[in-house]
């Protein structure tokens, strides 16, 4: 659970600037940007996502490297299942 997963910001919600839709290797989910108030990511930026919160902004290259590492670690499928939120993400 110490491993974070890279995601690309798709949209920042207009009604809540601390909330964004990210694309994590094809899976979309809502994440919280509240831990990056001084360096707010914009749509198109890559962030490291840990337990549903953006922890840091990273470059596209670093994102690709991190995804490669997760694949090699055999953690990718599990990570994607987690990001899907065990069904919770579909409920509003």
């Amino acid at each position: 659970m110490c491993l974070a997963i890279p995601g690309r910001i798709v949209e920042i919600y207009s009604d809540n600037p601390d909330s964004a839709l990210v694309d994590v290797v094809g899976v979309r989910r809502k994440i919280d940007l509240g831990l990056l108030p001084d360096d707010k990511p914009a749509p198109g930026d890559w962030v490291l996502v840990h337990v549903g919160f953006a922890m840091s902004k990273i470059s596209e290259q670093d994102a690709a490297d991190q995804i490669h590492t997760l694949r090699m670690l055999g953690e990718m499928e599990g990570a994607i299942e987690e990001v899907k939120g065990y069904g919770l993400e579909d409920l509003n």
Partner: protein
Amino acid sequence: MPMRFVDEFREPELISKTVEEIRRLAGTERHYRMMEVCGGHTHAIYRFGLKDILPGNIELIHGPGCPVCVLPMGRIDDGLAIAQSDVIFAAFGDMMRVPGTQGSPLEHKARGMDVRIVYSPADALKLARLNPDKHVMFFAIGFETTAPSTALTMMRARAEKIRNFSVFCNHVTIIPAIRAILDSPDMRLDAFIGPGHVSTVIGCRPYEWIAQNEHKPIVVSGFEPLDMLQSIVMLLRQLKAGQAKVENQYKRVVPWEGNRAALRAMAEVFQLRPYFEWRGLGFISQSALRINDKYSEFDAEQRFEVPGIRVTDPKAAQCGEVLKGVLKPHQCKLFGRECTPEHPVGALMVSTEGSCAAYYNYEHRKAAMVGLSSIA
């Protein structure tokens, strides 16, 4: 040289060169004991077969940085006891198979308890919004990587005046654990591979005492094979030069100063516990977080009767010795027999970040396969 997995690595040539540099620096004269603090590193070391490509005189000791592994069984029992009374028990997937004395959360679910796996503390809060007639308790675990997310979730709950949500807080802090390990008389370490993602939050400064007072080098490292190998080169260079510094190999992700907003969120919600019990390490002072008075309405330990159960680990299990690096996983009497990833006795066998599970999944199986092929 055995180079398992090297073809999968990015930049295999650079990997080979780095391994050559490690061999040159390590020489043959002495033995080096390096602790990787983070469980993510432990998992990566086994998965990538790094042990196979490092020279024999570099020994990697697996540190305490697996939050599931260091949590004493009594805390699991306490959390489950709260959930007996019509409370939804929400926790990360890592927690689900961790045994309490009466079984794991998953086994309690099978017996009818309302146990939910959540990816995020924010999802646990969402469960509370979706179930206004029920109370949702989030069983929080993790080091400084995860604690800010729990903190921010509680700040959101307070702002929204959500009344049916609480946190059973088991967050721990990495620095006192490193201190306890250094103070342990049976521990002889030369250097540390510092945790990557914890350091995105706390930065590199909190490690300075390790260099200055304990004269041990520490390099904050990324998780790729090349990251870890480069970190070992940096540590060997320091050791050869008689230096002890904090260095940051993972600069592309870890800022020297950490994440101030995350630290602010933690300071807003948490305060240090006077002491906390760690599995295998015993009681360590000021090593864990509790929820402060301002947020007491969201503190499960204040809201509910907590039995405060203290459970000693099964005598035959030697989790503590393995956790401190005194024993290798396979040297424990239960390893691979009574205790397996399918039926874990100790928590080190539960999480993929635990050294026993990592060892079992890679080294043990590899050995078994070699044994089988030699029979065939």
